[in-house]
C-alpha cells in the first residue's frame, strides 16, 4: 500500500485551515448530536446529565485510548472486554481475601496494584505472541477473549464476585467521589487522555508506534526495536483496561461473566469514529475521546426520550455512527 500514496496530491498542500476543519469531523458530529439531544430533552444539557455521560464515557474512553495506540501500530485487541472482567474479578477476590478488617485503604491499594499488574501482564502476553510469535493480533486476542472470560466464569462459578461490604464502602469514593467538583472517573479519563496524547505525539515511543503502523519494514531498517515497541503497545492497552477496571469495580462492587461484553467493539468504534484509520499509521487521541463521548451520548439521548420504539435503539446508534463517519470521511484516501 505504501507506493499508492505517492501519486495522491499530499493533503498537506491543501490550505491548512480547511484541512484542519475537515479533521474536526468527529467534534462536529458530537456537537450536532448535542444540539439534537437538547432539542429533544432540555435536561440533556444539565451539568448532572453531562457529568453522568462523561463519567460513563470514561470507562470505554480509557480503554479506547489504549486501543488507539494498538490500532495506530497496525494491531487490534479484541480481548479488552473480557480482560476487564477478569481483572475486576481477580481484583475483588484478592481484596476480599486480604481483608474485611480495618479501613481497607491498604487492601484497596494492593488490589489496585494487582489489577494494574494483571493488565500489564496480559498485554505482555499479547505483545509477545504477536511480536515474537508472529501470530495475527486478531487471532491472539480472539483467543484470549475466550480464555479470560472463561477463567472469570470459572473463578465465579458462573455467578458474580462481589466486593465485601466494608471494602465496598471504602472503595466507592473512587467512582462516586469528586475532585474539585469533578467526578473522579472524569479526572482519570482526562489525565489518561492527556498523557496518551503526550506519549503518542511527543515521545520517541509514540513516534515509533506511528512509524511501525505506517511501514513496519521501514521502522525495522531505521533501527526501531519493532518487537519491543509492539509489546509495550499491548501493555499500554492492558494498563488502560486495568485503569478502567479500577473505576468500574467501585461502581457496582462486583464482576460477573457478563461484565465487559462487547466493550471491544465499543472501544474500537470510538477509536475509528475519532478518525484513526483501522489500517494504522496515524491517529489521534482527542478524536478517540470525542468518539467515546459520542457513543455514550447516543445511548443517553435514547434513554432520555421516547420518540422511537425501544426495539430500534440499536438502529439509531448504527445510523448515527455511519452518519458521523460519513461527515468526516474524505480525508482518507
Amino acid at each position, binding site marked *: 500500500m505504501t507506493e499508492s500514496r505517492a501519486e495522491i496530491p499530499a493533503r498537506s498542500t491543501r490550505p491548512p485551515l480547511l484541512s484542519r476543519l475537515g479533521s474536526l469531523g468527529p467534534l462536529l458530529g458530537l456537537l450536532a448530536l448535542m444540539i439534537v439531544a437538547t432539542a429533544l*430533552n432540555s*435536561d440533556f444539557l*444539565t451539568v*448532572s*446529565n453531562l457529568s*453522568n455521560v462523561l463519567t*460513563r464515557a470514561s470507562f470505554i474512553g480509557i480503554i479506547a485510548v489504549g486501543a488507539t495506540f494498538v490500532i495506530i501500530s497496525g494491531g487490534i485487541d479484541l480481548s479488552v472486554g473480557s480482560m476487564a472482567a477478569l481483572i475486576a474479578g481477580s481484583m475483588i477476590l484478592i481484596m476480599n481475601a486480604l481483608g474485611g478488617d480495618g479501613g481497607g485503604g491498604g487492601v484497596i491499594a494492593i488490589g489496585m496494584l494487582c489489577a494494574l499488574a494483571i493488565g500489564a501482564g496480559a498485554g505482555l502476553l499479547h505483545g509477545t505472541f504477536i511480536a515474537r510469535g508472529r501470530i495475527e493480533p486478531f487471532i491472539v486476542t480472539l483467543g484470549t477473549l475466550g480464555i479470560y472470560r472463561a477463567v472469570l*466464569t470459572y473463578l*465465579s*462459578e*458462573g*455467578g*458474580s464476585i*462481589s466486593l465485601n461490604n466494608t471494602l465496598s464502602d471504602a472503595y466507592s469514593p473512587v467512582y*462516586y467521589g469528586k475532585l474539585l467538583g469533578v467526578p473522579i472517573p472524569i479526572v482519570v479519563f482526562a489525565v489518561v487522555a492527556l498523557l496518551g496524547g503526550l506519549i503518542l505525539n511527543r515521545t520517541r515511543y509514540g513516534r515509533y508506534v506511528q512509524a511501525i503502523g505506517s511501514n513496519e519494514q521501514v521502522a525495522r531498517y531505521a533501527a526501531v526495536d519493532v518487537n519491543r515497541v509492539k509489546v509495550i503497545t499491548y501493555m499500554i492497552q492492558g494498563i488502560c483496561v486495568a485503569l478502567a477496571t479500577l473505576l468500574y469495580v467501585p*461502581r*457496582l*462492587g*462486583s464482576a*460477573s*461473566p*457478563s*461484565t465487559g*461484553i462487547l466493550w471491544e467493539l465499543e472501544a474500537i468504534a470510538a477509536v475509528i469514529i475519532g478518525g484513526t484509520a483501522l489500517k494504522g499509521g496515524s491517529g489521534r487521541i482527542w478524536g478517540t475521546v470525542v468518539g467515546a463521548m459520542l457513543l455514550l451520548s447516543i*445511548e*443517553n439521548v*435514547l*434513554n*432520555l426520550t*421516547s420518540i422511537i420504539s*425501544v*426495539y430500534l*435503539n440499536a438502529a439509531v446508534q448504527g445510523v448515527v455512527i455511519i452518519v458521523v463517519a460519513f461527515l468526516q470521511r474524505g480525508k482518507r484516501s
Partner: protein
Amino acid sequence: QTKQVMGVSIPSADHGWTGGVVYWANETKKELEKMYPNLTVIVKTAKDANEQANQIQDMYTVNKINALVILPQESAPLTRPVANLKDKGVFTVVVDRALTDPKAQDAYVAGDNPGLGRVSGEYVGKTLGGKGNVVVLRGIATVIDNQRVDAFDKVMKEKYPGIKILDRQYANWNRDDGFKVMQDYLTRFPKIDAVWAQDDDIAVGVLKAIEQAGRKDIKFVLGGAGMKEMIKKVQDGDPLITADVTYPPNMIRDAMLLTAKSRMTKTAMPKTTIIPSVLVTKDNAAKFYFPKSPF
C-alpha cells in the same frame, strides 16, 4: 436395571441467573449419581441456540443419552431439534422456556414467566396504593421478557389504572445497563415512585444509580428471580428492596430429580410441573436464601 444416560443441556453461565442454573445442575448431577449408581448424568452448557442444537445432537449421536433435560436458550429454535431427539426415543424434559410445539416434549417443568410479571405487578400496584409513577427496566429482547412485561402491564391496566408507567427500556439482565438506564431515568423523570427491574442483576445497577443521585422519591425497587444478595437484603429489611419475586434457577434441579426418578423407577412423570413465581418478603425470605449458590 439397565444403565441410563441423562443429558442436561443448559445455557452457559453468561450472567447471574444462568450461573445459578449451571451451579444447580452440577450439584444435582453429583446428588443423582450417588443416588442412582446406574445413572450417568452429562451436563453441558451452550452459548447460543445454535450451539445448543448442535450439542443435543452430539449427546444423542455420541454419548447415547436416553433422557434429555434441557433449558433452552430460546424456545422456538430448539423446538425442532428437541423433537428430533424425541422421535428417536429420547425422553425429553423441557425446563422453563416451553417449546413452541408441546408435542416435542415428554414433560415440562415450567418456570412461570407470566406469573413473575403478574406477581410483580400486584406487588407494585398494591404497595403504591394504586397511584404513582413507575419505570420499567426490561431484560433482553426475548419471549420470556415479553411474557413478563405483558403480564405486568395487564395487571396495571386492569387493576391499577392510576399507576403511570413512565418508560420501558431494555437493560439486558445486565448490571451495567441497569445502572446506565436508571441514571438516565433519574435525569429524565423528576418523580419516580417505584422501579420494576424485572431481574436482580438489573436491580443491582439500579440501586447504585439511585444511591449516587441521592434521590429520595423512590419508595422501592422490585427486582426478580431471587438472587441471594437480594434475598438477603429483603431479609435484612433493606429500605429500597422490600421484596423480590422468585424465578428460581434451581428449577433445573427439580426437573433433573423428577426425570431421574421417572427413568430409574419406570414411573410416569407429570406432564407439566409448574414452579410458581412467589413473592418473597421479610417474612418468608429465609426459605429462599441459598448462600452456597452463586446466584
